[in-house]
């Protein structure tokens, strides 16, 4: 049992609600929770090299955003030191850190979305109402891995004919820029070619039928209700102001029972895919024959 076994409607509802909640609330606890839970959920979905890259990339991004914000925003009432006579404040650093958490949470959620959602799920979800949008979306989703593969091919070809000496860093940077231009050229030509080819084969002339391999079961309904409940609890807390987390001019954090309940709702929402995955893993461990 994995999260992508649910009906596309359920997964889409989860992704939408957790994305909107994380960005709209901007609460560091919710963002940190989303990072933790989606990070754990994405572990089995990512390869070893990607994991290593992520471990380098996300902390770097965090530092960059957390350091950059106080350089440009001088709001806040606790100056730590003065840079060219402008105050560098504690509040601005904390806001930068909180914003970086939100940013990383959104990136991780989107990463999980591209990993566990196939084009099939997109078309099953919106193909009936917006067939053109569904096609464009599935083509766009395919583009990132396609471009990566093509960039690799160009690099290999150039290495093959001896263009890359591998000595000078400057040369390599210049060559990468050149590769980029040939990659764009190649992709444009192939896009035009496939459009022509599709037209030549009468694509889109008659009305198409669609296959919907997904069934909405009682389990899907249960998960959807759980998502709605979590969302309702947190949104109610947010509307009543229990999730207020102000950085400027001074740090002002709301605490109390209502805040705790709405935070718990948001964290449970963020943890749902990880819990599903964990439940499936536990079942596999327990039911596996020990012979």
């Amino acid at each position, binding site marked *: 049992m994995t999260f992508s076994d649910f009906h596309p409607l359920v997964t889409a509802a989860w992704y939408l609600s957790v994305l909107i909640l994380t960005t709209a609330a901007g609460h560091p606890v919710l963002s940190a929770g989303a990072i933790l839970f989606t990070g754990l959920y994405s572990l089995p979905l990512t390869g070893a090299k990607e994991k290593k890259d992520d471990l380098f990339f996300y902390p770097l991004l965090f530092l960059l955003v957390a350091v950059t914000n106080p350089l440009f925003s001088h*709001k806040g009432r606790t100056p730590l*030191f003065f*840079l060219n006579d*402008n105050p560098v404040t504690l509040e601005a650093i904390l806001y930068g850190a909180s914003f970086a958490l939100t940013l990383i949470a959104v990136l991780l959620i989107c990463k999980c979305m591209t990993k566990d959602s196939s084009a099939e799920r997109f078309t099953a979800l919106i193909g009936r109402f917006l067939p053109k949008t569904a096609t464009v979306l599935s083509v766009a989703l395919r583009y990132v891995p396609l471009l990566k593969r093509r960039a690799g091919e160009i690099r290999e070809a150039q290495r093959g004919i001896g263009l890359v000496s591998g000595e000078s860093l400057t040369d390599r940077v210049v060559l990468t820029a050149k590769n980029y231009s040939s990659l764009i050229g190649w992709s444009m030509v192939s896009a035009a070619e496939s459009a022509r080819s599709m037209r030549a084969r009468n694509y889109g002339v008659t009305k198409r039928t669609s296959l919907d391999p997904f069934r909405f079961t009682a389990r899907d309904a249960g998960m959807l209700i759980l998502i709605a409940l979590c969302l309702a609890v947190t949104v109610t807390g947010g509307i009543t102001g229990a999730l207020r987390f102000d950085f400027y*001019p001074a740090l002002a954090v709301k605490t109390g029972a209502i805040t705790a309940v709405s935070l718990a709702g948001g964290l449970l929402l963020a943890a749902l895919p990880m819990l599903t995955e964990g439940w499936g893993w536990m079942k596999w461990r327990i039911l596996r024959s020990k012979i």
Partner: protein
Amino acid sequence: MKKDLIVLLALILLAVVLISGIDVKSVDEYYLLHAEDVKPGDPTVTVRVDASAAVKAGGKPVEALLSLGDLPPDGVLLPDTALVLREGDSAYGLFLRAARIHKLTVEHEGNEKSLSGVYVKGINGLSEFSCGSSSGWIFTVNGKAPETSPSAYYPADGDVIEWRFETDLNGFFN
């Protein structure tokens, strides 16, 4: 390899130029401890910072500052303060000196040495746009707003320099 060295040299040069333009002061260094001794006969300039218009207009950012005590209830951040006018003092330089003595933070954009000069965005947390999109700080000398940047204006003996928060700068200049 030679190309790499040239690029590396250029990068180091750029970094040195950037770092040489950075001036870091600790909080204690920034806030000058001693008020100036004004001897009779010294040329002086009076500096004052007034945000009473912001207090009158109210609004969320202003109320937050009032409740924290960063903005006094009458809005006068710095009452009339006499400073000794030294050779080469600009209006901005004098204002910054007064702010450092009286523990006000100044948020500014630009550089005293640059052609476009300095623009003061905020004083003690009260920043531009706090009371609507055309509110902000304006500096006046003897009640009139000069048509230069404060870092390019050199006051004379006996001038009164005032930093005033205006809620409608469009109306102020038209």
